[in-house]
C-alpha cells in the first residue's frame, strides 16, 4: 500500500499526459482563433447560467447520448454504455482509491490501476461493504456489453438498425482496435490480481477464481497490467489524430454553442472545433439518400469532415444535395450545411450577372409583389394558379419576374459564389424596397429561404405562397371545395427543414383533400436539389424514385409539393399526379359568383387584369 508505483504505469502516464497537453493546446487554439464577437460571447457566457445548461447537455449528450437513443435505441445504448460506463469507472475508481489511500492528491495513475495496488477485501465481503469492487465490476460489465454491440455493428450492422457503416481509414481502425482491447485487458488484469489474492467482486472475483483453478495467476499479474497500461497509453497517443478526438472536443463544442457561437466563414477556430468534434459515427450515412442512390460514393458528411480535417477537399464535395438530412440526424449537432458551403471556393462565376424585373406601372405602387423564381417559369401551372388565386382574393399584386430573367442568388451562394450572390441581393433589395409593396410572395422555397435569412427588406413581409394561401383560407378571402382524394405532402428541404415551414402546407391539404397520408418521417429530398451540381441525372432519378416510393406507401391519389424544382423532378418519375400546393388550391377554388357576398376589408379595389408570366 505504501509504495504506489510500478514501472508498468509509465506507458499510461506518458500517453495520458500527451493527451492532456494536446487538449489544453487545442482549447487555447480554438478560443484565440474565434472571431472577435464570438470570443466575447464565450467570455460573457462562461460565468452565466449557460455554463450550467451546457454541463447538463454534456451529460445528456456526451455521456448518455440521448439524441442517438432517439434516433436508434440499440446504437444509443452502445454509445452510452461505452461513454457513461468508462466515465463511471474513472469516477468510482477515484473515489475508491481516495477512500482507501486517504489522500486526495495522488498521481493520476493510482486510481486507474488501484486494483493492482490494493486487491481489496476478500471475495464475498467485497460485494457488500463498502462495495466499490461491486460497482467497478458493474460498470466494467456495462462497458463490455457496449463493446459487444460495437463489434456486432461493425460486422452485422443491419441488426443494429444501420444499413451502412462508415469505412474507416487505417489510423481510425487502429485506434478502434486499441479502444476495443482496453476493457477486456482491464478485466483480465484485475481478475489476475483478484484471483491471486482471492478478492474482487462478482466479475473480477469469479473470473479470478476461475483462473486460479487452472494456473497460478500471481505469475501473470504484472504482464497483464503492462498490457492494460500500454493499450491505454497507445490509445491516448492515437486519439488526437483519429475520430476519437471527438471524445474530449464535443463537450467544448457544446459549451461554445451554448454561449451562442455559430459557424461562419471567418471563424477558423469554431470550424476546426466542429471538424474535430465529428466522431465519424456514420449516422449521417444512414440519413443520406445518396447512400441508397449512389452506394459506395463517399459523399456523406462524415467522409467530407474527415477529408476537410486532413485538408484535402475532394471534388466529391459538389456531390452533396445540401438537403440537410444529415445535419438533422447528427447527434453532435454539427452545422454541416454551412460547413459544406464555406469550403466551396468562390470562382467568380456570375460576377457580372444582371437580372431584370418589373416594378408595377408608373406611379401607383402595388401592395403585393409576386416573385415566382426562375425555376417556376419551367412549370407555368404554378404561375397560372397563383395569378388566379391573387385575383380571386382581390389582391393588388405585381408580377416582378414576369419575363423570367430574375434570380434570387441562392443557387450561386449554394455553389460558393458568395460575391456574385451578394450583388444580386443588392439589386433585388433596392428593387423590392422601391416597389412600395409590403408583402413579398414567392413560389420557390430556395428564393424564400435566402429572402428570409439574408435579405434585409425593411417593412416587407416575406411569405412562401403556401403561407399566403393558408392565410387567405383562414381569413376566407378564398374558398375551396374539398375533394374525395387522398393526398401526400412532400416537404421541400429548403421550405420544411430549411425554413421550418411545415404546418401551413399541411393545413391547406387538410382543407383540400379527404386524407393527408404524409408519413411521419424526416423530410425527404427529391434529388433535384441545386446544392449538388456534381450529381448526375441517373443518381438524381434514383433519389427521386426512393423518395416517391417512401411517400406513396399509403397509396395516395396525388403527391403535393411546394417547390417548382421538386415538382419537376417528381413528375418525371411519379405514377400518380404531382401538383404544387398552389395548383391544388387553384384547381379547387370556388368561383366568386358561387361565393356569399364577402365584406371588403381594404376598401374598394378594382380587379386588375394582369399579364400572366
Amino acid at each position, binding site marked *: 500500500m505504501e509504495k504506489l508505483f510500478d514501472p508498468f504505469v509509465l506507458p499510461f502516464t506518458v500517453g495520458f499526459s500527451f493527451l492532456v497537453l494536446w487538449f489544453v493546446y487545442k482549447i487555447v487554439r480554438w478560443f484565440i482563433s474565434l472571431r472577435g464577437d464570438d470570443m466575447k460571447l464565450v467570455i460573457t457566457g462562461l460565468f452565466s447560467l449557460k455554463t450550467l445548461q451546457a454541463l447538463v447537455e454534456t451529460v445528456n449528450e456526451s455521456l448518455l447520448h440521448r439524441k442517438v437513443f432517439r434516433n436508434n435505441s440499440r446504437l444509443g445504448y452502445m454509445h452510452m454504455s461505452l461513454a457513461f460506463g468508462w466515465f463511471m469507472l474513472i469516477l468510482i475508481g477515484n473515489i475508491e482509491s481516495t477512500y482507501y489511500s486517504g489522500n486526495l492528491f495522488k498521481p493520476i495513475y493510482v486510481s486507474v490501476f488501484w486494483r493492482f495496488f490494493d486487491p481489496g477485501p476478500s471475495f464475498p465481503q467485497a460485494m457488500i461493504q463498502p462495495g466499490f469492487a461491486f460497482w467497478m465490476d458493474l460498470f466494467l460489465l456495462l462497458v463490455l456489453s457496449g463493446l459487444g454491440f460495437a463489434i456486432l455493428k461493425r460486422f452485422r450492422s443491419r441488426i443494429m438498425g444501420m444499413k451502412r457503416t462508415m469505412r474507416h481509414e487505417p489510423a481510425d481502425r487502429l485506434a478502434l482496435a486499441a479502444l476495443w482491447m482496453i476493457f477486456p485487458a482491464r478485466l483480465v488484469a484485475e481478475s489476475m490480481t483478484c484471483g491471486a489474492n482471492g478478492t474482487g467482486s462478482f466479475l473480477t472475483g469469479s473470473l479470478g477464481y476461475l483462473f486460479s483453478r487452472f494456473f497460478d495467476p500471481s505469475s501473470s499479474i504484472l504482464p497483464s497490467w503492462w498490457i492494460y497500461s500500454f493499450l491505454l497509453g497507445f490509445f491516448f497517443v492515437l486519439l488526437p489524430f483519429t475520430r476519437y478526438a471527438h471524445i474530449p472536443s464535443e463537450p467544448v463544442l457544446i459549451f461554445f454553442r451554448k454561449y451562442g457561437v455559430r459557424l461562419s466563414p471567418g471563424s477558423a477556430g469554431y470550424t476546426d472545433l466542429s471538424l474535430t468534434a465529428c466522431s465519424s459515427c456514420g449516422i449521417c450515412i444512414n440519413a443520406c439518400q445518396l447512400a441508397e442512390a449512389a452506394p459506395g460514393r463517399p459523399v456523406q458528411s462524415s467522409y467530407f469532415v474527415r477529408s476537410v480535417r486532413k485538408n484535402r477537399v475532394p471534388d466529391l464535395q459538389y456531390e452533396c444535395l445540401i438537403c440537410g438530412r444529415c445535419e438533422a440526424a447528427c447527434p453532435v449537432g454539427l452545422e454541416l450545411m454551412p460547413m459544406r458551403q464555406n469550403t466551396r471556393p468562390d470562382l467568380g462565376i456570375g460576377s457580372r450577372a444582371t437580372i431584370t424585373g418589373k416594378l408595377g406601372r408608373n406611379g401607383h405602387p402595388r401592395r403585393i409583389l409576386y416573385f415566382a423564381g426562375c425555376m417556376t417559369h419551367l412549370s407555368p401551372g404554378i404561375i397560372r394558379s397563383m395569378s388566379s388565386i391573387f385575383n380571386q382574393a382581390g389582391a393588388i399584386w405585381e408580377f416582378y419576374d414576369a419575363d423570367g430573367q430574375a434570380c434570387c442568388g441562392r443557387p450561386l451562394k449554394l455553389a460558393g459564389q458568395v460575391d456574385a450572390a451578394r450583388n444580386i441581393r443588392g439589386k433585388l433589395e433596392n428593387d423590392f424596397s422601391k416597389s412600395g409593396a409590403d408583402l413579398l410572395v414567392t413560389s420557390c422555397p430556395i428564393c424564400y429561404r435566402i429572402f428570409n435569412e439574408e435579405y434585409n427588406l425593411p417593412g416587407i413581409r416575406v411569405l412562401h405562397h403556401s403561407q399566403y394561401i393558408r392565410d387567405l383560407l383562414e381569413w376566407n378571402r378564398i374558398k375551396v371545395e374539398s375533394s374525395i382524394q387522398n393526398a401526400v405532402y412532400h416537404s421541400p428541404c429548403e421550405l420544411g427543414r430549411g425554413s421550418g415551414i411545415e404546418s401551413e402546407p399541411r393545413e391547406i391539404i387538410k382543407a383540400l383533400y379527404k386524407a393527408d397520408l404524409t408519413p411521419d418521417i424526416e423530410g425527404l429530398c427529391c434529388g433535384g436539389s441545386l446544392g449538388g*451540381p456534381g450529381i448526375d441525372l441517373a443518381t438524381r432519378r434514383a433519389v427521386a424514385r426512393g423518395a416517391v416510393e417512401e411517400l406513396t406507401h399509403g397509396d395516395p391519389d396525388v403527391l403535393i409539393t411546394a417547390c417548382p424544382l421538386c415538382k419537376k423532378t417528381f413528375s418525371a418519375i411519379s405514377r400518380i399526379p404531382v401538383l404544387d400546393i398552389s395548383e391544388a388550391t387553384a384547381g379547387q377554388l370556388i368561383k366568386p359568383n358561387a361565393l356569399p357576398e364577402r365584406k371588403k376589408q381594404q376598401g374598394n379595389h378594382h380587379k386588375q387584369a394582369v399579364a400572366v408570366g
Partner: protein
Amino acid sequence: MDAVKSKFGFEINQGRHIDMDRIDTRLADEISAHVRSWKACLNCGSCSATCPGGVGLRSLLLKLSTLGELTTLDTCLLCGKCFLVCPRGISTRYLIIQIIKKRREYGKAV
C-alpha cells in the same frame, strides 16, 4: 543584310477555317473526363434558350470543345435551369464549375 521588301498596300488574309489537326483540346478533354455527359451534347440550344443570365452556353461549350477556346462565363447565375431542360441530362452546372476551375488552373485570363 536582307533586301528591302516591297510593300503592296494590303495584308494577306488568314483563312477562317478551323484546322482540326493543330487544335489543342486538352482543356476540353480534361473537363469531359470529369463531366462525361458533356460529350452527349446535341447542340440543340435548349440551355441557351432558357438561360435567365443570357449565357450562350451552347455556343460557348461548342467553341470550347472544337477550338479549345473559352469565352467568359461571368453572367451565369448557376441557377441550373439549363440542367433541367437539357434533353441529354448533361450536368451543365457542374460543367460550368469545372470549366472555371480548370481555366484558373490553366491560368489563361479568358
